[in-house]
């Protein structure tokens, strides 16, 4: 744990290092960003030399986005930490690292260390807000003297940054982000004003530091590393000020109290170093050795800082001072202010006195050499440090005033310049509150570039993800859903099947409650894997069936421990010991593993399938092959819109593509056809008939199936008759004047047909209007906009009659899955019509104002995909967990008749089930938390199977660990599902507040328990969750929770239902659309996305925006002719046809590539996205703007910046 914390520290340091490095680089640094890049690159090189590939990667990332890069590095560290987490492991690692350091200057070692730390650091930064500083400072001076400064610095930094926000401009390249200069200046200024800033901050710092000091104190003594816990907390806080906190944290972990001490120093620029040093500690053995390492590590991560710290004690002081200087450098005066902290630097000296010096030197030298050299030197010589700073300051200012600050911020934020960002935000806010005047300004001017950028995070992760993701390591968070990665199943389910919100679960319910982080898994049991990954193996145990635990009935999996020479096995879930059946017996090798372990998927893989025996079948009878029934609305609207014609035409070809397991074989799926308006028409398409027969059932009150033989037929045998039928249906109803439709009986009809045929299956219902004809399930129009926003709003989401719920139950019992294609021209009450699809594992597709011409492609693609996609029928999903947690809540499209079994009439490859876990006992860190998701289903060939996904995550007793291994995208997925379900029972306002509160609680908990102390004015976000606010804001602004005036009730209900089955990648892009600039399309890579804000759009460009449901092509009014020519084949903006639904096929590379991109996007999503061309300042732009989710929207949704401020306020309220 400590280690982790330390790692964070390291990261901060790392950041600073860059700064330092830059300074060191001096020349290179001048350009703020450039420096980063350069440094990064430099680092990379450096890294290579070191041999630490990771570094390389990190740096690269760092390069990409300065802040981000830093962050990223931390992220990387995170993974590294994984191992480190376990204290021992880390230590060992550390040692190695050390050794490395020793050898190769530890670069490798350090980098890793630093990397690992960084993440934590990032997370930590949040905590940083070292509020109590003032008091402490004094103490700091003494012992921690250094630390205080650190904090202060950080604070300042934060302040700086915040202030910088506006100044961003000032900060050129980097400036924007950090605009450290301006910020700093601002900060400084601010600081001055309040006095607090400087004074107070420090003070605060001090206080915070005090703790640190304490920690430090202990740390020193600790070196042993006892402090960990505390540290962790601090680390957590690190986020914005991260550096400092991180440093603090790191200290604790490392036991490098010394480092902590440095932390104080950290406050200043040095802080970073401090952290870095810490990180190393974390990784490496906390002891001195570690320190040096740290130093190096930090450098890597953060640049020179680490190096500087390398000399940790000294470095810290050194660095800090330097850091201090940097900020100061920006505003000299400030520096002075900060300077005080510097004194702490002096403290560092104490540190120096500590172990660090030598090591520090070592690492630094090695590490920093080039880049860090400067820092190194600084670091090593405590005194030097100061000078270093001095040196640095200059460069920083020159370079990027921001940088240093950034770096400072970096400490916390370093990883990601973002951390820095966060810092700023908080800072601003803080300022606001603290220093009214400046604050206000600051807040208002909060620079969007300075706040965590999703694009940056995504890009960093994408760049970072180069190696296959192996699932063998417990508790390792997978790459983001937006990254392309290859998965190797080594015992845990692929993230494509199971994604968790937290990969390090709290051990106790108290912790879980305290953190408020939801513990959930998003399970996509039948996910389609990319072609290069093997689908789950099918295990056939013959008549005996799968082997299971006697007590909890968990299926054989890698978590089963074989004992007594292999004769028995102990269940990993409930610990019950069961006998191994004789036919399954196998000897164990010397490690206690079965000899055939790797021959058996169920013993070595995370996901596999069992062939189920007859015991697993309904009525103890092997299932019949499933059937597809197409139910087509042929009322006036349906015919007129062209839907009937299209469906009938398409079905003719579609029937050749029914799902099958073996492409060689004909599908065994049988099909049936029904049309309906207010009566139902069944068709007898028996192969022996010369022409199809239509059987009209008008007794809709009491539905039944009029025929048995000839309704469900094999496509191949009845081809002629079916074709004839499909030709005739449109003709027959061409002149219909029937406008009324029924709906309930339609589903009943399909259900009865399946019942009669005694098989499971799927209904495809193509429906157009509100079912107002007299029949069961008749609905009335209840769309009442006046209810929106009132307490009664929830009733609009609830089904208007209970009929469909009962029907859904019957459907599920029969394994009848319903897919609903809606073509409404007006209100159809999706909330009610959707009940059955949603409860049966089906999907709802909605094509409002369907026009054959423009919506044909979209509909047909959806239909094709829906028909063809692999799916299972009559499924039951059950999640078993190890003792201590329990699956308590489920979200998705399914039905539950008891509290444990998720029943899905149909389960296709796109459906996910989200499961929430709660503690019912303590978990152990040793065994972690296991979960096994077993899905019993009937395959499309009629085979009964069991698919098993196993997942193990770590458990932690430190909150910081939890925060370090979270998956924000998954958390958002969970939150949104939870919230969208809550609107059924609570007013949307309550739901929104609930979300904000929980989010605030999560972040506040982090701030309180994990981040190093820092000013209350700082917003400190955990690295893993730094996007939580922006994403949450997107959720809050979604049409469901905050409808725009033009959003119909149907749309809201539709989206609400749609979301319930979304996986993480879909929900991610749904809430935070992907916006690609199209100005330059080169090579095979996609252009770097931009953030969803109007500010990012250039009038002269064109952009592609994708939400998973919509695809917009936005064209700026001043778009270059060449661009227009390339895309549309016309040079004039005015000639672009806004009704285009597909791009013209032009013979130029740009057009080709653009179409490829569009196709690729469509291929990625489960639903086809219709292309909508939006011309700037055209009417359609209103719709488009709705998806620019970082902006304020017309219906009152807050902009990202505003929301972040608001969130910060909430957090502060919680903290006070």
């Amino acid at each position, binding site marked *: 744990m400590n280690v982790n914390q330390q790692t964070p520290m390291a990261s901060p340091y790392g950041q600073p290092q860059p700064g330092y490095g830059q300074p060191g680089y001096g020349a290179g640094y001048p350009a703020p960003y450039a420096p980063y890049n350069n440094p990064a690159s430099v680092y990379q090189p450096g890294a290579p030399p070191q041999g630490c590939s990771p570094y390389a990667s990190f740096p690269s990332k760092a390069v990409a986005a300065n802040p981000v890069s830093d962050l990223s590095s931390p992220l990387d560290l995170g993974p590294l930490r994984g191992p480190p987490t376990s204290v021992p492991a880390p230590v060992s690692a550390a040692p190695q690292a050390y050794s490395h350091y020793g050898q190769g200057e530890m670069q490798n070692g350090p980098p890793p260390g630093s990397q690992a730390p960084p993440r934590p650091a990032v997370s930590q930064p949040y905590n940083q807000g070292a509020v109590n500083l003032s008091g402490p400072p004094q103490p700091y001076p003494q012992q921690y003297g250094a630390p205080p400064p650190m904090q202060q610095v950080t604070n300042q930094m934060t302040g700086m940054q915040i202030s910088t926000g506006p100044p961003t401009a000032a900060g050129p390249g980097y400036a924007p982000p950090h605009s450290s200069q301006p910020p700093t200046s601002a900060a400084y200024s601010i600081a001055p004003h309040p006095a607090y800033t400087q004074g107070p901050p420090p003070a605060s710092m001090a206080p915070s530091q005090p703790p640190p000091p304490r920690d430090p104190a202990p740390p020193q003594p600790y070196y042993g590393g006892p402090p960990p816990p505390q540290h962790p907390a601090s680390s957590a806080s690190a986020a914005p000020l991260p550096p400092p906190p991180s440093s603090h944290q790191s200290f604790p972990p490392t036991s490098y109290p010394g480092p902590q001490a440095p932390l104080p120093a950290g406050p200043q620029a040095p802080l970073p170093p401090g952290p870095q040093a810490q990180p190393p500690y974390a990784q490496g053995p906390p002891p001195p050795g570690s320190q040096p390492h740290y130093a190096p590590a930090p450098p890597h991560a953060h640049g020179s800082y680490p190096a500087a710290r390398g000399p940790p004690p000294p470095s810290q002081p050194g660095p800090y001072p330097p850091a201090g200087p940097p900020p100061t450098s920006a505003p000299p005066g400030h520096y002075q202010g900060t300077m005080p902290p510097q004194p702490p630097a002096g403290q560092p000296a104490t540190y120096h006195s500590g172990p660090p010096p030598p090591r520090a030197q070592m690492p630094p030298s090695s590490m920093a050499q080039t880049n860090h050299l400067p820092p190194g030197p600084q670091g090593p010589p405590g005194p030097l440090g100061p000078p270093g700073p001095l040196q640095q300051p200059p460069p920083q200012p020159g370079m990027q005033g921001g940088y240093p600050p950034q770096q400072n911020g970096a400490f916390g934020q370093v990883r990601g310049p973002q951390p820095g960002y966060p810092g700023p935000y908080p800072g601003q806010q803080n300022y606001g509150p603290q220093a009214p005047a400046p604050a206000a300004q600051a807040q208002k001017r909060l620079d969007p570039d300075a706040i965590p950028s999703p694009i940056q995070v995504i890009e960093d992760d994408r760049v970072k993800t180069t190696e296959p993701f192996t699932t063998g390591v417990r508790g390792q968070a997978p790459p983001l859903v937006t990254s392309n990665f290859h998965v190797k199943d080594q015992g845990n389910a692929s993230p494509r099947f199971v994604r968790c919100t937290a990969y390090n679960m709290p051990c106790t319910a108290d912790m879980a409650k305290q953190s408020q982080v939801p513990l959930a898994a998003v399970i996509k049991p039948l996910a389609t894997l990319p072609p290069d990954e093997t689908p789950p193996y099918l295990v056939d145990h013959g008549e005996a069936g799968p082997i299971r635990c006697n007590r909890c009935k968990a299926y054989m999996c890698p978590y089963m421990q074989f004992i007594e020479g292999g004769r028995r096995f102990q269940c990993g879930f409930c610990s019950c010991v069961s006998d191994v059946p004789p036919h399954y017996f196998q000897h164990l090798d010397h490690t206690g593993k079965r000899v055939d372990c790797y021959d058996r998927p169920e013993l070595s893989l995370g996901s596999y399938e069992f062939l189920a025996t007859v015991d697993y079948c309904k009525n103890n009878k092997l299932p019949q092959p499933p059937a597809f029934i197409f139910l087509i609305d042929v009322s006036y609207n349906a015919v007129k819109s062209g839907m009937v014609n299209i469906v009938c035409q398409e079905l003719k070809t579609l029937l050749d593509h029914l799902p099958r397991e073996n492409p060689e074989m004909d599908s065994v799926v049988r099909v049936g056809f029904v049309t309906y308006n207010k*009566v139902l*028409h*069944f068709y007898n398409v028996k192969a022996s*008939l010369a*022409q199809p027969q*239509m*059987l009209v059932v008008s007794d809709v009150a009491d539905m039944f199936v*009029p025929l*048995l033989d000839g309704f469900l037929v094999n496509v191949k045998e009845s081809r002629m008759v079916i074709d004839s039928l499909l030709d005739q249906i449109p003709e*027959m109803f061409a002149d219909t004047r029937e406008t009324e439709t029924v709906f309930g009986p339609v589903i009943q009809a399909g259900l009865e047909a399946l019942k009669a045929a005694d098989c499971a299956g799927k209904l495809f219902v193509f429906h157009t209007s509100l079912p107002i004809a007299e029949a069961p399930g008749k609905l009335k129009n209840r769309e009442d906009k006046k209810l929106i926003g009132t307490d009664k709003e929830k009733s609009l989401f609830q089904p208007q009659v209970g009929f469909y719920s009962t029907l859904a139950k019957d459907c599920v019992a029969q394994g009848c899955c319903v897919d609903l294609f809606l073509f409404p021209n007006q209100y159809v009450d999706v909330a009610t019509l959707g009940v059955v699809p949603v409860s049966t594992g089906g999907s709802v597709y909605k094509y409002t104002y369907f026009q054959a011409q423009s919506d044909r492609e979209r509909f047909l693609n959806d239909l094709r995909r829906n028909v063809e996609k692999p799916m299972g029928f009559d499924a039951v999903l059950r999640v078993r967990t190890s003792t201590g947690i329990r699956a308590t809540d489920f979200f998705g499209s399914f039905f539950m008749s008891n509290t444990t079994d998720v029943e899905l009439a149909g389960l296709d490859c796109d459906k996910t089930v989200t499961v929430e876990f709660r503690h019912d006992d303590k978990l152990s860190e040793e065994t972690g938390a296991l979960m096994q998701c077993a899905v019993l289903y009937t395959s499309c060939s009629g085979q009964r199977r069991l698919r098993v996904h196993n997942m193990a995550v770590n458990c932690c007793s430190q909150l910081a660990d939890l925060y370090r291994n979270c998956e924000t995208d998954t958390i958002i997925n969970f939150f949104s599902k939870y919230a969208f379900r809550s609107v059924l029972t609570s007013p949307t306002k309550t739901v929104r507040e609930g979300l904000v509160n929980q989010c605030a609680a999560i972040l506040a908990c982090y701030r309180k328990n994990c981040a190093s102390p820092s000013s209350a004015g700082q917003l400190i976000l955990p690295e893993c969750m730094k996007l939580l606010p922006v994403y949450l804001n997107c959720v809050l602004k979604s049409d469901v929770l905050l409808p725009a005036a033009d959003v119909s009730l149907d749309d809201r209900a539709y989206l609400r239902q749609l979301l319930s089955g979304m996986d993480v990648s879909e929900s991610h892009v749904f809430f935070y659309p992907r916006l690609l600039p199209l100005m330059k399309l080169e090579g095979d890579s996609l252009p770097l996305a931009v953030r969803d804000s109007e500010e990012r759009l250039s009038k002269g460009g064109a952009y592609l925006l994708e939400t998973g449901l919509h695809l917009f092509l936005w064209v700026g009014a001043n778009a270059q002719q060449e661009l227009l020519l390339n895309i549309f084949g016309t040079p004039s903006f005015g000639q672009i046809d806004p009704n285009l639904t597909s791009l013209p096929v032009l013979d130029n590379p740009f057009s080709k590539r653009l179409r490829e991109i569009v196709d690729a996007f469509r291929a990625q999503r489960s639903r086809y996205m219709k292309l909508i061309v939006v011309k700037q300042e055209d009417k359609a732009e209103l719709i488009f703007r709705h998806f620019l989710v970082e902006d304020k929207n017309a219906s009152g949704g807050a902009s990202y910046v505003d929301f972040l401020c608001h969130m910060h306020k909430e957090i502060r309220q919680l903290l006070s």
Partner: protein
Amino acid sequence: MATFPEFISQNEERDGVRFSWNVWPSSRLEATRMVVPLAALLTPLRERPDLPPIQYEPVLCSRATCRAVLNPLCQVDYRAKLWACNFCYQRNQFPPTYTGISEVNQPAELLPQFSTIEYVVQRGPQMPLIFLYVVDTCMEDEDLQALKESLQMSLSLLPPTALVGLITFGRMVQVHELGCEGISKSYVFRGTKDLSAKQLQEMLGLTKPSAAQGARGQQAPQPPLSNRFLQPVQKIDMNLTDLLGELQRDPWPVTQGKRPLRSLGVAMSIAVGLLECTFPNTGARIMTFIGGPATQGPGMVVGDELKTPIRSWHDIEKDNAKYMKKSTKHYEALASRASANGHIMDIYACALDQTGLLEMKCCPNHTGYCYMVMADSFNTSLFKQTFQRVFAKDEQGTFKMAFAATLEIKTSREIKVSGAIGPCVSLNAKGPCVSENEIGTGGTCQWKMCGLDPSTTLALYLEVVNQHNAPIPQGGRGALQFVTQYQHSSGQRRIRVTTTARNWADAQTQIQSIAASFDQEAAAILMARLAVQRAESEEGPDVLRWLDRQLIRLCQKFGDYHKDDPNSFRFSETFSLYPQFMFHLRRSPFLQVFNNSPDESSYYRHQFVRHDLTQALIMVQPVLYAYSFNGPPEPVLLDSSSILPDRILLMDTFFQILIYHGEMVAQWRKAGYQEMTEYENFRHLLQAPVDDAQELLHTRFPMPRYIDTEHGGSQARFLLSKVNPSQTHNNMYNWGQESGAPILTDDVSLQVFMDHLKKLAVSSAA
């Protein structure tokens, strides 16, 4: 004056009417003492090819309560152009069109030979004939195939303008839409749920036209002459033929030990409902073909478990038939709906087991002239030919069937109408001629008969209301007028008017002439109808007892005897056959249920109450002919003594035509003598009854069961059960003699019966 038998036969020829008494006792009291009530057997549409259709409408009495039709019995004042109604004595002006009337220029209706006359109503649209086939598909493929062929064949027999419709049923009920191109459509209904006409109308989408017409306006109002379900034969001939050809056996699986689920009740209900809402008050024929009992839904008569047999008389007596009442109620409701709209419900039931005719009997019974056919299979000539004969045509090429008829009766003041027994329903028309005493369907002077054919015969029971103290002047005549309005199969509306009169006689003084006017055949049938009517609701023995008592009273009243001396009993010729009819009636399946299933009883009774006198008499007392080398074929006594080894017997029971080869003849036949040229006469002998049987078969409707059997053959039971058991194992003194064959029965023989009758008749104690 001709003899009474001649008079009777003349009247029957001309008017289709036979009275039990042809001279009427002039007072109520006397009339009731006649034992056999004053009653008439009326065959409204008796074939009268000689009758010229009158192309104008009848002239009616202007009195609102009378409305009698001008007839030959009316007094006419040619100068004043007035006529006096012979029923109410109202004096009426002739309508303007009769201005040219004079003694020498009389309209047909005033000519005595036109006591029966037929008017053709020119008003109103020509109504199409409507045939709705309701077909059971739960039967063996072979049966179904035969049925399909019969139905296809029938299409060729229908006039091209006739509308046809098709409903099939099994587990579900399908109403087929006709004339669809490329795809055949049908509306399907659950077989377990009864639907009201309104629901049905909505479900079949039949309400729309009117609404749509109103809305669209310009679209020519679709003539109500056809709709999607009922279309002219000429239009959908091919289509329907194909449709019938593709009919499949009900596809729902029938597990072992179960009966197929047959939704007959709902199918019929839907058929009735369909016609009800599309062609109310238009002649239509619902022809239902069933291959087994209804096993689900309303109208089910037995569950689908094969282990529970269908109800027997035994069950019914024990009140063990749990579906019967409910089911009967269902069909009664249907029958009344159908009859209210003038629709006919025919049932063709072909199955080895019962099909529930007992429950359904009211459908054909109430809807007038109907066909109810019972056969073993659709693949028999019994069904095929019967069905074909339904579409028999007369010389003009029109069907012999008539539709939607109403019969109204007008009477002289001295008599009133008590009721009618036959295939009719009451129209509840109260009038001055309605008696308070109800017999059969009473309380009305108008009846509805949805279907008629030339042999449909109603028994009308009359009551003399003249008081004893108000003697009718000498020479007074009681008059009756029967006005039958019906839809001719050509689509015309026609009115047939029969006016008849009989002399009054004072029973005290002219008992002889009254007795001489007794029509014992008509009386036997009229009494039989009464008995059958009673048997429907009363216990068998009670009916027999009642019948016996009537017979004894008749004997006492008209017999010639000395008290307490049975041997002195003599009956006049006009009464002599009556006891014998009663003897056979008592043994007939109309009153005896032993050895008959409830369905059979219903079937026999149904046929009995709707056929004319001649056929009814055959039913009561089968005809037996003997063929032998001893002479030409001769009728012989229906007696066991007629069964001789060297005879071939031909028995016609109406329902069966049976050829029985005597023991020796059978042996000869077995030996193949008929093949030898030297025994050609034997071949001729064998052939003779067969030819005669064929002749009968060709004229009889419904087609009788043809049985060819021999001495000792199992089918000989039909013969043995009919003949008078004059020789049984009990009467020893005939035992072993060559004459005749003993019948193993405990039934009394005619001799014993007569002995008892005499004894009771002369008994002073009675």
